[in-house]
């Protein structure tokens, strides 16, 4: 199925699933439009009534006073009905756009969580996904509601207005329509240009904001090195670039003023030249002339809107296509393996033979002809300089990286024989760079598990963080992240360790995860781990040998080989 077709499918499915509310909503829009026409027509009748012009025949049975009351009643009634019908389409159609937006957003992460790392690095960087979730969803959701409202408006208001004008005077109708036909084309062009410029300005703003946060983050170093003025200059340059971009967007938006005004003036010219001639010739009554004037202005609206709608539909579906591309992007196969197989608790945990690894598109061998056997309860140390292939090896041993050559058997079988969930329950991994979620300390330790406070404290104690947390005013409930407390590098590392321990893995990989912890604390943590995790197979990675003193086997890596 082509991408465009798939995007339309998303739209059509949503519409048919909510057909009831769309039916009511469109009916409400119709009523609104009808009332709008009636209001204008009624105003014409009122003016006719006062100026002694001709009124529709069904008024003739009433007295003057009665006629006035009827006209007044129509005025008030049509306004009231318009109020109800406007409410009607808002609680149906406008509401649906929010549901559609939520659906579109939900599907993003539903799919992205299984993306390949390569795709995330190259095709779908964070910036692209973020803008998909904000601007594409925002643009895409309109075709589920507001654009439909506009469409109905255009069709019915346009037809109604035209029909009413035709009943008043046929040549005048064509004249008015003819001179206003430029509107939809011009508006569409303007709206597209406005959108492009607006996007550019947003990008400029993004760059400016990034720089701004960089400046705030490095303020301390700027103060020390006296480079603040220079940074301010940079910021101002970006601010000026953004100002220009934004201004050109605003100037384009302002072009709607002469466009709409120009349309009015053209209408006036038609009315005052051709229309006036017809009136002078007695073909059009004065009331009709006034009504025609109102109707021409009313006709401008649908023509004006037509331009927007064409542009909105185009932009909306382009966004849906972009989103659909994300939804259908290939996933990491290993995460989706379906297997009921449990892990057999054998002595031999890992058996690696003739392992070679290169990054795709790069011929340099990170690991070459590597062989290793790991048994239960073993403490293996991996040691080597930066870039010697330690982290890659750990990723392969933990079953995260699977595009290697050679054989890796985990409890006697290839990693692909187990489901992702089974493996992850069994294997723990603490990376060098700590990553924490912007939640409380407690939920960072327990994640998806239900741990008691006592358990959380236990794991914090094991990773040497208990004392620090006791010092925080909110203790376990202390929030982390930008708006919460700011942990030091070492504290973050210890917390990620606690998080891994809390999952009680049978095999645990520690990838230089205490590099920012001071030596005294590090020593006590290592001691804790060795003492408490007797049954657990531990793999330690470090570029300092002191960390490895509890290991019963130490390998030194250089250029992907054992030294």
């Amino acid at each position, binding site marked *: 199925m082509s991408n465009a077709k798939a995007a339309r499918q998303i739209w059509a499915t949503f519409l048919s699933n909510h057909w009831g509310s769309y039916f009511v909503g469109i009916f409400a829009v119709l009523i609104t439009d009808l009332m709008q026409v009636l209001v204008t027509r009624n105003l014409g009748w009122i003016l006719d009534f006062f100026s002694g012009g001709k009124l529709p025949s069904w008024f003739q049975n009433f007295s003057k006073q009665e006629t006035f009351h009827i006209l007044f009643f129509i005025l008030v009634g049509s306004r009231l009905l318009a109020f109800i019908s406007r409410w009607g389409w808002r609680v149906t159609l406008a509401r649906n756009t929010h549901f559609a937006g939520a659906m579109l957003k939900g599907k993003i992460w539903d799919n992205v969580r299984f993306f390949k790392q390569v795709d995330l690095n190259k095709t779908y960087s964070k910036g692209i996904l973020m803008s998909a979730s904000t601007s594409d969803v925002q643009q895409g959701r309109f075709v589920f509601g507001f654009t439909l409202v506009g469409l109905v408006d255009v069709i019915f208001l346009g037809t109604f207005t035209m029909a009413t004008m035709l009943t008043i005077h046929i040549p005048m109708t064509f004249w008015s329509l003819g001179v206003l036909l430029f509107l939809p084309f011009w508006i569409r062009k303007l709206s597209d240009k406005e959108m492009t410029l607006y996007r550019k300005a947003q990008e400029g703003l993004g760059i400016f904001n990034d720089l701004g946060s960089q400046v705030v983050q490095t303020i301390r170093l700027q103060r020390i090195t006296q480079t*603040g003025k220079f940074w301010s200059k940079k910021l101002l340059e970006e601010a000026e670039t953004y100002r220009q971009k934004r201004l050109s967007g605003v100037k384009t938006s302002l072009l709607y003023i002469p466009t709409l005004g120009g349309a*009015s003036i053209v209408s006036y010219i038609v009315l005052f030249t051709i229309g006036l001639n017809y009136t002078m010739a007695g073909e059009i009554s004065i009331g009709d002339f006034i009504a025609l004037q109102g109707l021409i202005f009313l006709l401008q609206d649908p023509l004006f809107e037509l331009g927007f709608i064409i542009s909105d539909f185009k932009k909306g579906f382009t966004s849906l296509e972009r989103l659909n591309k994300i939804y259908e992007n290939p996933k990491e196969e290993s995460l989706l393996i379906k297997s009921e197989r449990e892990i057999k608790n054998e002595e031999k945990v890992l058996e690696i033979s003739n392992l070679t690894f290169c990054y795709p598109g790069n011929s340099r061998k990170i690991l070459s002809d590597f062989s290793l056997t790991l048994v239960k309860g073993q403490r293996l140390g991996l040691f080597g300089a*930066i870039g010697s292939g330690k982290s890659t090896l750990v990723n392969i041993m933990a079953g995260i990286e699977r595009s290697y050559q050679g054989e890796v058997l985990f409890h006697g079988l290839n990693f692909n024989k187990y489901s992702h969930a089974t493996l992850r329950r069994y294997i723990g991994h603490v990376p060098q760079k700590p990553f924490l979620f912007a939640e409380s300390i407690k939920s960072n330790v327990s994640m998806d598990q239900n741990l008691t406070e006592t358990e959380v404290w236990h794991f914090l104690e094991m990773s040497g963080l208990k004392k620090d947390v006791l010092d925080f005013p909110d203790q376990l409930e202390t929030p982390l992240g930008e708006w919460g407390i700011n942990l030091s590098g070492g504290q973050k590392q210890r917390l990620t360790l606690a998080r891994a321990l809390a999952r009680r893995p049978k095999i645990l990989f520690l990838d230089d995860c205490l590099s920012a912890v001071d030596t005294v604390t590090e020593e006590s943590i290592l001691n804790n781990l060795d003492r408490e995790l007797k049954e657990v197979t531990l793999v330690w990675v470090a570029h300092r040998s002191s960390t490895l003193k509890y290991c019963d086997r130490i390998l030194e890596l250089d250029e992907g080989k054992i030294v």
Partner: protein
Amino acid sequence: MSKNDKKKKSYLKIDDQDEEVIGKNRVGDWRSFVTLLTYAKEYRFSFIIALSLIGINGVLAIMSAKIMGPFVEEGLIPLNKEISSKYAVAIIFLEGIGLFSLWWGRRILAIAASKTLYAIRERLFEHLQVLPMSYFDHQPQGRVVTRITHDVEGIEEFFTSSLGRLLNASCMAIIATLAMLQTHFKLGLILLSSMIPVVIFIFLTREKVRVVQRKMSKFTSTLNAKLSESINGLEVIRSFGLEGWSKKNYDKAVDDLLVSQLTANRFFSWTRPLISLLCSLPMIGLVWFGGNMVLVGALGIGLFVTFVRYTERFFMPIMTLAREIHVIQQAFTSAERVASFLAEAEEEKVLGVDGSIPDPREEVIIAGELHFKEVSMSYQDRDELQKKADWVLNNLSFKISPGEKIGLVGATGCGKTTTVSLLSRLYEFQKGDILLDGYSLRDYKRGFLRKQIGFVSQEVIIFKGSLRENLTTESYFLDEDILKACEVTGFLKVFESAGLNLESEILEGGSNMSIGERQLLSLTRILLNNPSILVLDEATANIDPAHEKMVHSAVNKIMQGRTCLMIAHRLATLGNCDRILVFDRGSLVEEGSRQSLLEKKKGHFYRLQNAES
């Protein structure tokens, strides 16, 4: 970056965006806004011209609507072609000129507004540079970033988009009112009073609008943060098999946003149509009262038509106001925050008046002799100190001779980093004094002092720009001088072999450079600055093997002839110090050469060394 972050951040100030606080500060809205208007002063002529042009449009529009009456009465009804044409030409002429002046006025306004916003941003950046460090410690970074970005955008949205519409709407409303009152006072008054319900309604619902909009934007940013976090943390999610959990959390954020959007939708579903219904009250009133007057002959039909047109024009402005109300409110809230950010005490106030050394007429060379005399320091403010003092440095005394190499050692939070921060006068100390070359640090100009201290840390800031810009921000250096410094540190060899020159563009964050190359760049930067005191904070840790030797030799070269303070989190990085100062809980507990410290079998240093080996 600082080991004391933990302590300092526990004193985070309450969020001034917090709902509770916002309610209390509301009085300040207007005044804040007026304060910000001072930045528009420079462009006042543009604003006046813009306003006049917009006003002219209003007057012309009313005039055009006004002659609609005589056009019907004198031209159309008697079917007088000549008079009709005369009025028709006048109407088209008036509309045309009005349109042009409105468009032009709005353009001038937009330009002036964007320049004003630029001026506000400029002022904010200046302020950022003179705020004391203690301010940044008490604020989460996100909040400060929000002040200089998002909050200004709130004002910008109002200035560049809404202000024009609003001014136009107000002009129209005022002129239409005046015109109606002047034409027929009684009917004008009736029409005017029929606008009261809508104004009251807008006024009554404004708070609710604010709450509803705020909730939506809050949940929008929560969701964005969630997505961003999930992408950043995907590695962790994957390694723990948390895909399901992350989806649950993400969906919850989507749902929260959806609920807030639906609430808003429900609210706007009846308020928006009601406002447009209330806005039609003048027309209803006109037809009823005016119509009855016409029926009894108290009002001419021409005048009636004129009033119909006025009312049509009058209808739009109030709708505009209703639609823009939240932008206006947002602008006021933002203005208040920006103004209060600008009102934060500057370094000058917190650290006292800048010192006077050196006199600009003489050249002062700093030898680099340091003397800490019974220094006590706390990050608390005066009130907190009196309640329960929490000293970070406690009665600290030591002396360092010019050119000496000193290692600072101690467990996390012992005061090493604070000691160094005091040298740069990032914070005030409460007791004792620190002397540099015999003068108190307080007597030196802060800018001068900071230039005297070269700071080498693991983290190197590199920005997008030329290599030259990255090396020095001063323009007085000749290329020769720069290249010479590069040669000393060995950086020259590195970038020449990579085929770069001083004008080459460096990517943001130096992403095309290795850690070692970045460190060499930073060392060259420091050498060009020629400081008399050098502070090294784990400068040689984590360097890629290819550059490790070069960095070491560059560091050694730069250290020559300068007083050096080496902060060591690991004893292995201490290298060859003349003397080591051992800190514990803000006090100096041991000092001496490495050898002499190791001989004290039960000393602090001995214990640290043991833990490491």
